[in-house]
């Protein structure tokens, strides 16, 4: 029986009445690395912060060694995506900060900090300020600061995603050799990531989160020998499986033609990016493997998936088993001249993008003029203020491109294009 460190028990979280996490249950046990994998909007960072005791769950409970949290989790230390180092403290002082908070005597503090700095490969940089360091070196400071506290569980919030590819790979490898060599001063690791390969490379278990609201989709054990070989067929098969889980349709998710603007938010992409993706799929014969083009274009999944989502929503492509296939409309869209492709786009967004459809219908019923604030108010029921604004911005961008309606920032008015057919 493995030693159970942290229990997440039916945790739900809402912000202003908007659900972002729904009924999450999981355990972190000693001796394992767990990856929380999900796309943006899946609430994975929120989940990590409830585990860290930084934000309270709305429902359910998080327990550390059986005790329910009521404040920052004493058994954890966190490594941040943005490093979160104090810019006014030297490397040494940053690493010592947590020890100073525990009241460790100065001499012992110095000694332990130097040991952690040495372990993480930072020696020589003790008196440097974070500003003077490269991103990779800064994140090493972040690791040293967390590890020096010898927490039971090390939490990592996308620790490598602010680093360039080579630096990230280097740091990952070094960490894994520390972990494999039993030199790691923590019992378990929980890493949040949107990078599928990273999850397969590091984790013993990958927990896949679905979006809107964040929920558990699947738990995938990774039984590969360490160090892991990216080129092995089992590795590739796992990556494909996770891609499928992240892009595939979920059974209880409504089709865009029936969905409301809050049930199917518009993916945050520009028309230009969307057209670019369709062009690439067309150029490669109308069918591509998602992991392949992600690797070819050097795209992170968070950059690629919204494009795929938008293309699927508008019926320009179809996704099956990690493959993208161009539809007939998609082929027309990318081969037609600009006027014709705009008309096609207009028809697709009017019929299939829920928010654009709602706006078009409302404009048709209100002789062509409406305040944008009206739609913001409606959107606020399902989104935070910033997300609602983003949704409206996307809809305006798409509507303008399709010449369906226009928006005047000065008067906050949405105006239907006189030539547009607003209702199919």
């Amino acid at each position, binding site marked *: 029986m493995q030693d159970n460190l942290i229990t997440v028990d039916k945790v739900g979280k809402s912000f202003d009445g908007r659900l972002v996490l729904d009924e999450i249950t999981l355990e972190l046990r000693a001796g394992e690395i767990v990856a929380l994998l999900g796309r943006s909007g899946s609430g994975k960072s929120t989940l990590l*912060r409830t585990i*860290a*005791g*930084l*934000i*309270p769950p709305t429902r359910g409970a998080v327990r550390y060694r059986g005790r329910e*949290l*009521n*404040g*920052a*989790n*004493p058994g*954890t*230390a*966190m490594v*941040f*995506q*943005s*490093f*979160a180092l*104090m*810019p*006014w*403290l*030297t490397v040494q002082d940053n690493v010592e*900060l*947590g020890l*100073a*908070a*525990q*009241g460790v*005597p*100065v001499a012992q503090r110095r000694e332990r900090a130097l040991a952690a700095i040495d372990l993480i490969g930072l*020696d*020589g*940089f*003790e*008196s*440097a*300020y974070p*500003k*003077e360091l490269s991103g990779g070196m800064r994140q090493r400071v972040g690791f040293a*600061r967390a590890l020096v*506290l010898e927490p039971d569980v090390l939490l990592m919030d996308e620790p490598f995603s602010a680093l360039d590819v080579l630096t990230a790979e280097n740091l990952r490898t070094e960490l894994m050799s520390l972990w494999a060599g039993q030199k790691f001063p923590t019992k378990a690791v929980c890493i949040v990531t949107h990078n599928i390969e990273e999850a397969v490379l590091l984790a013993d278990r990958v927990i896949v989160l679905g979006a809107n609201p964040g929920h558990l989709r699947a738990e995938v054990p990774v039984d590969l020998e360490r160090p892991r070989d990216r080129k092995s067929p089992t590795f590739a098969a796992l990556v494909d499986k996770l891609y499928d889980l992240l892009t595939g349709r979920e059974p209880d998710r409504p089709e865009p033609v029936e969905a409301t603007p809050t049930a199917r938010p518009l993916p945050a992409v520009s028309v230009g990016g969307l057209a670019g993706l369709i062009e690439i799929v067309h150029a490669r014969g109308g069918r591509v493997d998602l992991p392949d083009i992600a690797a070819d274009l050097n795209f992170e999944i968070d950059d690629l998936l919204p494009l795929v989502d938008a293309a699927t929503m508008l019926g320009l492509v179809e996704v099956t088993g990690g493959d993208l296939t161009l539809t007939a409309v998609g082929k027309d869209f990318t081969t037609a001249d600009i006027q014709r492709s705009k008309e096609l786009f207009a028809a697709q967004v009017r019929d299939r993008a829920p928010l654009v459809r709602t706006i078009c219908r409302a404009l048709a019923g209100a002789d062509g003029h409406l305040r944008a604030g009206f739609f913001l108010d409606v959107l606020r029921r399902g989104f935070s203020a910033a997300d609602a604004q983003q949704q409206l911005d996307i809809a305006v961008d798409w509507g303008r491109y399709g010449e369906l309606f226009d928006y005047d*920032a*000065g008067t906050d008015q949405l105006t239907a294009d006189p030539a547009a057919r607003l209702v199919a």
Partner: protein
Amino acid sequence: MVRTFSAQLRPFAVPKPYRGVIDLVVLLGAAGLVWVVVRLWHGVTVPFDQTTAPSTVSTDPAELPYYAARSLLRMFAALALSVAFTLVYATAAARLRRAEKVLLPVLDILQSVPILGFLSVTITGFIALFPGSQLGLECASVFAIFTSQAWNMTFAFYQSLVSQPRDLDEASRLLRLSKWQRFWRVDVPSGMIPLVWNGMMSFGGGWFFLVASEALSVNNHSYALPGIGAYVASATANAELGRVLLAIGVMIVLVVGVNVLFWRPLTAWAERFRVEDSESAQAPRSLVLDLLRRSRIPRLLGRALGWLVTPIDRTMAVFGLAEHPLRISPMKRRVGDVLFTTAVLAAVAYGLSTMVTFIADTAGFAEVGHVLLLGLVTFGRVLVLVAVATVVWVPVGVWIGLNPRISRLAQPVVQVLASFPANFLFPLVTGVLVATGISLDWGGIVLMALGAQWYILFNVIAGASAIPNDLREAAANLRLPRILWWRKLILPAIFASYVTGGITAAGGAWNASIVAEVVSYGSTTLTATGLGAYIAQATGSGDAAHILIGVAVMSLYVVGLNRLFWRRLYAIAERRFSL
């Protein structure tokens, strides 16, 4: 070996023999400073008797250095007080949920209250607090300067606390810092840059109130504190123009000196607290700071004080962790909220009703109507001032801002002009008005403008120099005619900065009206019709009801205009014209 990395980044290595010289300079400077402060302190605590206290000071130029030093001591005492107030008040407002609801509106009101109207109240209070010592008068003067500095600094620090990067907050909570450690290791450093820059700006504004509060007639009694402001007041009363000019010269030296020796090094030092990754392109440099950095003395001092950190940390840990419980019973919270709201509302209602009965029993409400009309007259002056300053300074500011070489030269000059106390120049203008017989009703506008106009120039320069170069090149490439160039490029681009300048200028003008609508030169006293003159006269005769009405009405005008006019312009600037 380990230390070489950072050593390379220091400005430059200093050969050994010079180091001794630098250390000596720093040591002498520090010793001199201590000696001066100790000597001045003796002057502060001299016995004082309200009936025999001097109402003027000597205008002997030999006394001027001593007076200047006394004034400077007052300025720094007020600055220290403002910093202490800022740290406590802003932290309370940012960290205590309920306190924020009260502290912020209070701060907003305090910011728009004309400080000079309150001098009579504060002076009486402080004299009662220190009977038989000049300390009471000193405190009243320091307090007047404090009230001109503190609100701005507090707002800036509060802003930096609530907009602290989220990950820094999370990191400090996970590291389990105590409240004390959190405050000194995270909160103060992350707010250091706004604190220092706002302190510098507010310090500049403080000179005006120093001058105004050193020589006063309140409650039918004239007071004078040894200081450069009282010196000018006495010289004006004696119509000694040469000595006024001499004092103006000393004042310029003071403003520039404090800038070079204090604010420049401080702003340059504060750069280390910048959170952004990149160094700012034109980070302030300071020779004085370089000198201090090359000396061994500050480092030795730091090491000696460093031993105190751990024991203090341990003692202050009694305040608990910088953490709030995740689970609070909503019932308990609701009850607390209700109790708190009731208490606040009751206090406000009590205050208002006391004020209303007081006015009804004394001056009567007819007086309020009369004062509102007077306010309209002063408002007219503010309006003319802002309009004329706009027409004059916007083109000049744009011209300076668009020429990097000129703006490098002009920027420090304008900075000095903005912090130079305009009431120092009043005697000169008053002399001209007396000689030419021009009414103060019009001349008052000039007096008010002496201090206020610079804010417009200052901000327009900043706005114009921030116009992206490619926009200017695009405009040149399109061969925009002059009028289009102004309408489509320059005016929208500087709009936000102009609004900031305008709001500051208008606020400054309202405050200045209290000293600008009643002026005297020699034996002649000129009085204008207006709210400022009304408050000044009420203060002079110590008429509490009239002071209250005057101050309340002026606050009403300032707050009302900010809400109805300037805030809307801000909103437009942000929505339409942000670059």
